[in-house]
C-alpha cells in the first residue's frame, strides 16, 4: 500500500491540517501514527515484527502517549491491541479525535466494548482463522502434557537429587480416550482433526450441529446435551468464544458431572469457567486435573489457590505464541489498518452484534 501524498502539510490552511473527516494529508516522510504497546514490551508484539508495522506506520508507544497525550492525541489514527492492551475505554476514545480503527491481534474480542467503540465512528478488526492451527496445537499440547505428566517428569529429570528414576505418578493414555469438545467452531474442528490421529473418540457440543460430512471427516459425534458430553468424556476441551451465553458455562454443577478421572482443558477464556468452583473440585478430587492456557485475571494473583494445586497445569496465554503465527497476525493487522485508513473495507471487520 502506498502513502497518500497530497499537498505538503505546511502549505495547508490551518483548518485543513486538523480536519477530522477528510483523509488527512501528510508529507512523504510521515507515516500514519498508531498507538500500541512498545514492541518488545513483555506483553507486546515481539520486537522482531516491529519492522512490519514500521514500514507503514509510526508507532507511538503506550508509555510515550501517557507521558505526553497532548502531543500525540490528534495524530493517532489506529490503535493496535495485543493481549488486550491498550485498553479502549471511553476516556481514551474521547482524546483521540482522529482515531479510525482498533486493530486487534487475535480472534477473541471480548475485551473490547464494540458498541462503545463503534459509537465513536471507529471500526474494529480482529485476526480470525490465522490463529486456528496454532491454538489447536496448543490445546493438544496441554492435553498430552497433562495426561502424560510432562511437567512432573521434567521436574524429576532435572532434579538435583536423583540417582535413580524413582516411580512417580503414572499418567493416563491419550490414545483411545474420549475427548469432548465444547465449541466446535473453526478452532474446535482443528482440535478434532488432531485428536483423530490419536484414535480418540470425539464428542462435541455446539450451538449448531455441523454437517454430516464434516463430522464424518473427523469422526466426531454430536451431543445435543452438554451434560451428557461431560459425563462421557475423559478429556473436556473448551473452545468457545466468551459471550454472555458462555460466561461461567462450566460451573460446579458441570464439573461434578465430569468423571473423577477426567481432565478439563481450557483454551478459550478464563471467564468461561467458574474458577472458584474449579479450585474446589480439583482440591477434593471431583475431577482428576485441569490444564489452562487462560485464566481470569491474567495473570492470576500470586497467592491464588490454582497456583498451589498439584493437578493444574497453567500457561500464560500462549495459544498463538509462535514466530510464524505472530508474523502472519501482524501482517494481517497492518493490512486491516491500511485498508481502513485508506477508506476501504477491511478484511476482518468485527461489527457490533444486535
Amino acid at each position: 500500500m502506498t502513502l497518500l501524498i497530497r499537498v505538503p502539510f505546511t502549505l495547508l490552511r490551518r483548518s485543513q491540517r486538523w480536519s477530522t473527516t477528510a483523509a488527512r494529508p501528510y508529507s512523504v516522510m510521515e507515516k500514519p501514527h498508531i498507538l500500541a504497546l512498545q514492541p518488545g514490551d513483555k506483553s507486546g508484539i515481539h520486537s522482531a515484527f516491529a519492522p512490519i508495522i514500521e514500514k507503514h506506520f509510526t508507532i507511538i508507544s503506550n508509555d510515550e502517549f501517557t507521558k505526553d497525550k497532548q502531543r500525540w492525541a490528534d495524530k493517532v489514527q489506529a490503535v493496535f491491541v495485543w493481549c488486550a492492551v491498550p485498553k479502549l475505554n471511553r476516556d481514551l476514545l474521547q482524546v483521540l479525535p482522529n482515531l479510525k480503527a482498533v486493530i486487534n491481534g487475535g480472534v477473541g474480542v471480548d475485551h473490547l466494548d464494540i458498541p462503545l467503540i463503534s459509537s465513536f465512528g471507529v471500526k474494529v478488526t480482529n485476526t480470525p482463522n490465522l490463529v486456528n492451527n496454532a491454538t489447536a496445537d496448543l490445546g493438544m499440547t496441554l492435553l498430552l502434557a497433562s495426561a502424560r505428566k510432562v511437567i512432573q517428569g521434567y521436574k524429576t529429570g532435572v532434579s538435583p537429587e536423583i540417582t535413580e528414576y524413582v516411580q512417580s505418578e503414572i499418567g493416563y493414555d491419550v490414545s483411545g480416550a474420549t475427548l469432548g469438545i465444547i465449541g466446535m467452531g473453526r478452532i474446535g474442528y482443528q482440535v478434532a482433526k488432531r485428536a483423530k490421529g490419536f484414535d480418540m473418540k470425539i464428542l462435541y457440543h455446539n450451538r449448531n450441529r455441523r454437517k454430516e460430512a464434516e463430522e464424518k471427516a473427523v469422526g466426531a459425534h454430536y451431543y445435543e446435551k452438554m451434560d451428557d458430553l461431560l459425563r462421557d468424556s475423559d478429556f473436556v476441551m473448551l473452545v468457545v468464544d466468551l459471550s454472555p451465553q458462555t460466561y461461567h458455562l462450566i460451573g460446579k454443577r458441570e464439573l461434578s458431572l465430569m468423571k473423577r478421572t477426567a481432565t478439563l482443558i481450557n483454551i478459550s477464556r478464563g471467564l468461561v469457567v467458574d474458577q472458584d468452583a474449579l479450585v474446589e473440585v480439583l482440591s477434593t478430587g471431583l475431577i482428576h486435573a485441569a490444564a489452562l492456557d487462560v485464566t481470569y485475571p491474567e495473570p492470576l494473583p500470586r497467592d491464588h489457590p490454582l497456583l498451589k494445586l498439584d493437578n493444574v497445569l497453567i500457561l500464560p496465554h500462549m495459544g498463538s505464541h509462535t514466530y510464524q503465527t505472530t508474523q502472519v497476525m501482524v501482517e494481517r493487522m497492518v493490512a486491516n489498518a491500511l485498508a481502513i485508513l485508506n477508506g476501504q473495507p477491511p478484511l476482518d471487520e468485527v461489527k457490533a452484534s444486535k
Partner: protein
Amino acid sequence: MCVHEMEKPHILATKPGEYKGIPQIFAPLLEKHFTVVPYHEFEKNPNRWADKIQALIVFFSIPKISRDLLLSLPNLKAVISGGVGVDHLDIPLITSFGVKIANTPTIVDNATADMGMALLLASARKLIEGYKIAISPDMTKLTHCDLGHDVSGSTLGIIGMGRIGYKIAKRAQGFDMKILYHNRKQREAEDEKAVGATYCAKIEDLLRESDFVMLSVNLSPETHKLIGKRELSMMKPTATLVNVSRGLVVDQDALVEALQDGVIYAAALDVTYPEPLPRNHPLLRLKNILILPHMGTASYQTTRAMVERIIANTRLALEGSPLLDEVKPN
C-alpha cells in the same frame, strides 16, 4: 511341591512399588497367579529361593541377568521383560541356559507414539518455559516467554518407521505436518499413502529437510550412535531432535556440542545414556533441551496391559506352552 497346598509358582521380580518395579497398584494381578519373591530379598538369601524360581520378570531393565544369576536358578524357565526393547538382555546367554525370553511388543506402541508427540509439541511450543512464567512468584503482569514454533504445517522426519514410527506418522498427519521417513525397508505404497509419508532412502535427505527429527528405532549394533556429529550438522539450525528410542542411538557428546553451538535448535529426549544422567552432565545445564525420565509407557492403562501380558506369557512358559511374544536369538 504339594499341589493340594495351592502354592503358587515362584517368580523373581523387583518388589512392586519399588524403584523400577511394577507399580504397587498392579501387584494383586501378579499375586493372583504367583508368589512374588522380591529381588532384594533373594539377594540376601539366594539359597532359600533358588530352586523355586521358575520365572524372572524384568521391568525397567532390572534385575540385570548375569551368568551367575542364571547359574543359581536351576528351575528358571523364562525371563519376561516389560516393554518392547530387549537391548538390556544378553539373549544368546539366556537362551543357552534353555530359558525362554518374552517382551511386550505392540502394547507399548500407542503410549510411546503419544509420548513422542507430547515431547515434540512441548518443545516446539515452549511448554516448560511458559509454565515457569505462569507460576513465577514475580509475575505481576502478563508476560510471555520466547516465541515457539508452529508444529502445524512443519516437516517431521521419522527415523525408524516400525510400528511406533508409523503411529507417530498417523498422529503427525492430523497436524498437517509434512512427513518424511527413513527405514531399513520402504513401506508399502498404501501404508505410506494412508499417513502421507514420503520415503527418504538416504538419511541425509531427511536430516536436511526436517524441522523435527524423531528417532523411533530399536537399539542394535547398527543403530548405536546413529545420530552423531555428522548427522547433527546436516540438520537445519532451526530443527529439533526428538528421541523416544534409546539414549545410545545418539552420540550424546556430539549432541551437547551441537546444542551449545546452535548447530541444531533444540532437543527433546525421553531417553538418555545412562538413565538417569549424572547430575553434573552438561545436557542438564542447557536451556534448549527437554529431558523426561523414560516415561514412554508410563500410563495406567498401558502399564496394566503390560503387566497382564507379562502374566500371560509367564503362565504359558510355566506350563510349557508356546509364548505369545517370544524373543529368539537372531
